Each structure stands twice: as structure tokens, then as C-alpha cells.
């Protein structure tokens, strides 16, 4: 699965292009972890390219946000589609993330 990475100022944007499931999710998790450490939590996950997630995908996201919780932060997600949002709501995990409509707003939240 392709994971696009771009920089907007001091903020890193990771955009996984594909459903966040199984092996792809694990791979994304590793990348995510690396970026979290490197960027001190200044990152946004652009989920506009993620059609759906499975439990591994959820685990990955939760692991990242928990990691950041030690520093009083949460993982910022933007562009999540309805399916993904529903999954997060149903599993009660929605509160652990910060949700944004689009990338620009998400990036601006760092100012």
C-alpha cells in the first residue's frame, strides 16, 4: 500500500492510499510510529484515501494515539469517510482522536 508523505510547514501529513487492513495496516502502523517520534506529534493522518478499516487498522491507529497521549496529544485525522467514522463511533474509539473535515483545517490546528 502506498503511503504518501508530505510536509506542510512543520507538519507531516501521512496519507495511506487504500483500506487499512491486515498487513497494510501493520506496515502503516510502523511508519506512523516512526513519524510520531520524529515529528514530536506534529502530524496529520489524511484518511481520505482509506475506504474502510479492520481491527488491525483500528489497533494501529489506537496504538499511535495512545503513544501520543503521554505527551497530552491525540492523533489528528482528517477526511475520514462515513464508513470509517461509523466504525470509530461503534467501537467507542472516536474520542481518542481529533477529527477534522479537511487537511487544511487539520494542519492549521497546529498554529
Amino acid at each position: 500500500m502506498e503511503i504518501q508523505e508530505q510536509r506542510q510547514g512543520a507538519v507531516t501529513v501521512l496519507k495511506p492510499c487504500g483500506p487499512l487492513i491486515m498487513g497494510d495496516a501493520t506496515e502503516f502502523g510502523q511508519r506512523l510510529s516512526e513519524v510520531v517520534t520524529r515529528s514530536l506529534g506534529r502530524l496529520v493522518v489524511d484518511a481520505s484515501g482509506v475506504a474502510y478499516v479492520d481491527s488491525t487498522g483500528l489497533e494501529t491507529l489506537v496504538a499511535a494515539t495512545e503513544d501520543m497521549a503521554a505527551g497530552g496529544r491525540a492523533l489528528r485525522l482528517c477526511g475520514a469517510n462515513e464508513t470509517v467514522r461509523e466504525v470509530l463511533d461503534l467501537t467507542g474509539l472516536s474520542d481518542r482522536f481529533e477529527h477534522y473535515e479537511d487537511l487544511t483545517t487539520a494542519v492549521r490546528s497546529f498554529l
Partner: protein
Amino acid sequence: MVQNQETTQSEVAPAAPTPAAQASVPRVRRRGLLSHGEGAVARVGIVTAALVVGVLSLSSWWTLRTYHAQEQASRERELLSVSGVLTSSIESLMSNGDITGVRRLVADAAVLQGLSGCRVVIDGVGILADAEPSRITVAKLPEAKGNAAAVSDGLTSGSLDRGEGGLLRVRTSLAVAGQNDVALEVSRAGTASTFGPWEVQAGIAGIAALGMGGLLMAYRQMRMRWRGLGAIRESLMIEAQGDAVAGELEVGQAMGPEAAAWNGVVREREKLRRLLALEKAAEKIAQRSGAGGELSAACDAMWHGLLVLDDKARITYANGAAAVLLNVKREELLEKPVREVFEDESIATAAEALATGRTRQRAIADVTRPGTERTVLRLTAKPMRREESGRAIVVVEDVTQQKVAEESRGAFVAQATHELRTPLTNIRLYVETLVEEGETDPAVRAKCLNVVQSEVRRLERIVGDMLSVAEIEAGQLKLRSAEVRLDQLFAELEADLRVGAEDKEIKLVFDLPPKFGVMSADRDKLMLALHNIVGNAIKYTPAGGTVSVRVTEEGPHLRVDVVDNGIGIKAEEQELVFERFYRAKDRRLANITGSGIGLALARQVVRLHGGDITVASAIDKGSTFTITVPISNGLSMRAAA
């Protein structure tokens, strides 16, 4: 006789009126009782007893001595007076020659006055009269000697003489007519004993015995209690010297209510100490594990770092964010002097000054944390207003994004000013020329107007860029989508760029598909993006080069490849060139003006349309920028918030 009595008494009673004997007895008694707690009490007891005994014996001795002396004096006086009275009587009797009368008087006086001896003596002859008749040696007075002038002058005072064993003797010379050397001698025993009669001594001894007995009884009674107090005092001394082990301070319970109360206090204190230690430990644990306590949880939920410093500038608390931002484990932060944690001199000094109470001013410093990714932290040190004057907090904020934004703005303004200057200068120059010469020379006029026109267009583009950038910064970039005729779009693009390319002798080729459709897009923004890409290609290709624009439709996407054979971009910089204000570190760029925002803007616009721009390049070989935009779907209608 007197000495014997004394010795007997000292054996019978524990105290006798002899200081030496008395002092030793109490001490013997008490030696066996000097144990825990006794020390102080025994000392007091001994001193008291010794004092009492000393006072008692001293007063007794003085009383008795005085009494004895008085007794003696009185006896002496008596004897003298008796002697005096007898003298006058005897003198008159002897004058009448009544020897028998004298003898009778002497005998009676001895009996009546209790004299041990009473006699009339004629020196050199013998004893004329005596209370003991057998001692008489002279029958009658010797011949008168002739000195008839012996007259009795009343009371003749005799001379007192104290003999051995306290015997008193008075010898009085008698004045008898015709006789010399006649004397009366009376004698009497002295006082019975130096210390008075035995009743006195016994009485005193008895009272002393009773007194000592009483003291002893009282002492016995109080012993336990006093021992208790003595023990408590000892415990206090131990405590004062240093930290006593628990249990060392307690005293025997049996020593009375004070002891019990003391033990209670000691146990209470131990309990409180243990509780305090437990509390402190719990606090430390809670601090380290970051769990427990609502306040602690709240601090850990903060995304700003918080450090609390004590009055010696040591860190006493650090929340989770502080550890993350400073890239130090939380446990390693605690108890560290603040200087060790912050390498930046100014903030370390400021924090120290605030913590130790030397200043009350806030201090702010922006420090760059070294690391692979640039991070700017804002450290604010502020005093904590509490009872103690010295304590401070340090707040750590990640202001990297803000710094970047500031720098962007600054760079942008500088660059934009620079960018605007050139066309404006050109316009001014050419308008001046137009004014001076244009009226007369049509060729000049035509040229000037052309230049002005293209410079104005350039200005428009630059200003358009600036507005777009401003909009993007403010998050207000909106796409006003409309139906865009692609053929017209590219035609306009070509027209705009042709002159510039020709000036530089660059071949500009447009390879367009035969049938062009329409797409939903923001025409101006799209034009802007395309203009930037193709304009760049021309800018960064030296004279004689070629720039070709190839447009194709790939499924739902429109694909535009802009190929040049210019200076190319290094591999490491190929991603970076899309960043705002980034200009490649190629020496050849020094002579080429550029704001550094063209690519960033183009990419932003294309992405907003749902597409993207990528680049493939090699140094000196040229670059190919590829724009991909979906032609028709909901994405391209999306507007930026």
C-alpha cells in the same frame, strides 16, 4: 562517760548528731537502687537527706553547746556567790572566836549547797574547818599575830579555778583579826556532760531517727513516680542528641501515670511519622507513574510541558508533555537542577533566578531542539506566587509550526516586494520613454506599450500568486468551479508564454489531444498552476532549449507532462522544491528570479482539484513535471474550507 554515750547512739539510730556518721549511712542505703531512672532521683534524694541531716546536727550541736556553756557559767556564778556569802559569815564567826560555829556552818553549807568540798584553811598550819570532820587538823586558832587591821570588806571575791574533770574551786582569803593566810575553799563538780543531760541527746537522736525514717518512707513512696520522671528525662536527652530508634524512647509502664502518658505520646509520634513517610512515598510513586490524583491526570492531559522547580532550581514535577517535548524520560527529569536539562543558557539562568527568588520577571526563550526534524520550543519561566518566595514553573510549548508560518510570511513579503519591483520599474521606464518619445516615434510607442502590457500581466500574475498564497495561509482558498473549456485554456497559456520563450530562444511545443473536453475546475487557479509549471520550465532552461507540454486523457484523469531539458533538479531536492519558498541550492539559480512559491501553489491548487503534481528529473538533463487531475467527479467540485 560522755564519749561512750555518743558511740552507743550512733549505732542505734540511723542518724546521730555527728555529721560524719550521718552522711555515710544514707549513701550506703541508696547505692543498690541506682538503676534506670534512678540517677537523677537518687542524687536529689541524697542531697536532700544530707542537707536535712546536716542542718539538724548543726543546730543540735550549737544548741547543746550553748546550753552547756550557759550551764557552766551559771554554776560558776552560783559557787562564787555561795563562797561570798560563806566568807562573810565565817569572818564574823571567827572574829568572835566561834570555831565550832564555823565548823557547823561549813558542814551545813556543804550539804545544803551540794558542795563537793568546803573548808577553811590556814596556810602553813592546817585545816581549821571542813565539811568532812575527819580532815580537820587544827583545833583552834593560832596566836594572834598582831595585824588587827583585818577588816572584812563585805563580799570578798575569790579566785575561781577550774580543775580537771570540770571541778570548780573557789578560794577566798578571809580577813580575820590577828591572823594571816586564812582562806575558804569551796569546790563543786562541773556539768555532767559536754552535751548536756542524756535526755537531751536521746530526744534529739530519737527525733532525728523519726525524721529520717519519715523521709525514707516518703522516698519509697515517691520512688516509682520519680523514677518514671527520671526515665522520661533520660529519653528526652537521648532524643535531643539525635534520632532515637523507635522503642528506645519508651519507659517502663509500671512507673506510674506519667510514664504511661509519655509512652502514649511516643507511640503517637511514631505512628504519625510512619504515616507521613507512607504519604510521601505514595506521592512520589504517583508522581513517577503519572497515575493517580485528578490533578496529576489533568497535568498529563496538557499538551504543553509543565515543570515545577523548587527554591534550589531543581525540578520537583514534570508532566508527560514536558518529557516528550524535551525528549527526556520523566524519571530522569525529577530532582535534576534545571541547568542540566536546558542547554540554552538564557532560559536556564532565568529559571534559576526565578526559582531562587532573585527576580520576579517572566522569561521567554525560543530554543531549537537539535534533532533530525527541526523543532522550536518556547520555554516560559515564571515565578510561582506561594508562601515561600522561591519557586517557579517552566512551560514548554511546541511552536515550530508558528515559527514556520512566521518565517514564511516574512520570506514571502520580502520576496514579493522584490518580485513586484522589477515589473514596476520596467513599466515606469517604458512609460517614461513613451511619454518622451512615443508621440513622435510610432515604433517606439508600439514597443513600449507591448512591454508595459506584458509587465502588467506579469504583475497581475504575481499579485494573483500573492493573493492565493495569502488565501491558502488563511485557509480560505476556495475553488470556484465552473465548466472549463480545456482547448481555450491551453491556447491562452500558449499565447501568454510564447513571447517569453522566444526571447530566450527556447522552443515551446504544445502537444494537445485532437478532441478536448470540458472539465469542472476553477479556471483562474488552474491557469495559475499551469502557468507556474510551464513558466518554470522556460525559466530554468538555458537558451536554445526545448519545453514541451503534452496533454493526454488517461481514463478519468487529465494528464499534463511538461518536459524541459534545462538545468534539472537534484534527487534530494525533488520533493523539497514543492515546499513554500524553497529554492533549489543550485548555483545557477542565483541569476534567476523566483519567489519559491510557484510550485507550492501549483501543487496546492492541483491537490484541491483532487489531483497531484510529481516530478522526474536529473541534473543537467532536464525535468518532467506531471500534473494529474481528475476530469469529472465530485472531488474536483470540492472547495477548501
